């Protein structure tokens, strides 16, 4: 797979179809994001370990790609993207954080081991340049056990889990979709500044709710969490509910607006069920 991606990147660079390629470079046995501008450099391009390429540069709401696009106006940038990277790009483009007209996606599918590690339900981009797509892990697996619990046990479970939170804001900072300039999780109305543990469940509720129509399932929040809080149980559950209620999949179609932003006429819903 790596050879194929390198070949394609070299082609694009030498044919001047793109001005630069944003990918991972191998350095001291680690993968670091790097902007490849010469075809000769491409030999150092690597695909693993997985590292998110379209992240937000906190505390500014810019993404690394929007900064690059400002520095190289009118030039195309190639992005070596996994399925999640591509979904992040599409979702960021909807919020006008990236201009997709100047992005060339060089997509490649993840292998089985990576898909299992991330518990990813869609470990491939829309148009991979090659390689075999492996089947994703169904989302239900993540929250089946949670839903089998009774309400009061669920509450106990989350009280125990979320009180472990040390308010490091790692989940927010790692998330490619968290780009608010002023974060609700930092406002005194919703959380007591300088106090641990954060108020249950207000603090995480903010993020869970904001992620409901944005989460592209990269799994970075859970990986970033030093206290191992199973945040994705909820984000995955909400994703499946979004699918059920609105038939909406974040990060698949750049033209489809989030159903929360549209009216009922544009995006019809069934009558609100009172007994959910």
């Amino acid at each position: 797979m790596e050879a194929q991606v390198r070949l394609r990147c070299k082609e694009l660079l030498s044919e001047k179809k793109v001005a630069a390629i944003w990918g991972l470079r191998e350095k001291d046995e680690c993968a670091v994001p790097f902007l490849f501008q010469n075809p000769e450099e491409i030999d150092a391009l690597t695909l693993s370990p997985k590292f998110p390429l379209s992240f937000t540069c906190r505390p500014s709401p810019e993404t690394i790609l929007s900064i690059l696009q400002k520095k190289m106006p009118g030039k195309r940038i190639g992005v070596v993207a996994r399925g999640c990277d591509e979904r992040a790009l599409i979702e960021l483009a909807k919020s006008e954080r990236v201009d997709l007209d100047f992005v060339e996606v060089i997509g490649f599918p993840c292998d089985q081991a990576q898909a299992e590690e991330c518990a990813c339900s869609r470990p491939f981009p829309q148009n991979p340049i090659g390689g075999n797509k492996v089947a994703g892990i169904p989302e239900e697996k993540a929250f089946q056990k949670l839903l089998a619990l009774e309400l009061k046990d669920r509450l106990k479970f989350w009280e125990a889990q979320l009180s472990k939170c040390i308010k490091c804001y790692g989940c927010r900072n790692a998330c490619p979709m968290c780009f608010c300039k002023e974060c609700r999780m930092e406002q005194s109305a919703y959380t007591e500044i300088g106090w641990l543990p954060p108020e249950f469940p207000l603090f995480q509720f903010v993020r869970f709710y904001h992620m409901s129509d944005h989460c592209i399932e990269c799994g970075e929040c859970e990986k970033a969490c030093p206290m191992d809080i199973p945040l994705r149980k909820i984000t995955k559950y909400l994703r499946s509910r979004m699918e059920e209620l609105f038939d909406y999949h974040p990060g698949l179609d750049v033209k489809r607006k989030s159903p929360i932003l549209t009216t009922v006429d544009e995006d019809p819903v069934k009558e609100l069920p009172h007994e959910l």
Partner: protein
Amino acid sequence: MNDNFEPRIVGFMCNWCTYVAADMAGVARLKQPPNMTAIRMMCSGAVSPLYVISALKKGADGVFIGGCHIGDCHYQRGNHSTLKRIMIVKPLLEALGIDSRRVRLEWISASEGVKYAKVISEFVDQLKELGPCPLREA
């Protein structure tokens, strides 16, 4: 459960419809339980899901959101957002272990004082059955 439990309801009501209906129910002396604390909003679309969870956290047993009927919104599309937000908030509350019946969204227009009184009585009965909100601080 305590038999004398009286639930506390925080109601976010839209200035143009539900608040007027509540007013009307009062003026017409319709029988309604006194458990409601009304908060007048300019539009039900101004109700952030964070208000809902804050209310539940800070002492409410139930949250009522009242708006104009779809199509009647004073701001054209405010209540469309409310509907969709609440549709997501409910499963989120369930996943966290809070009964989603504690949140109720109703469309009550300015002339529907009778419906308002009926909905509130129903909601209070429902909350009496559910008991105090587990999130509520002592």
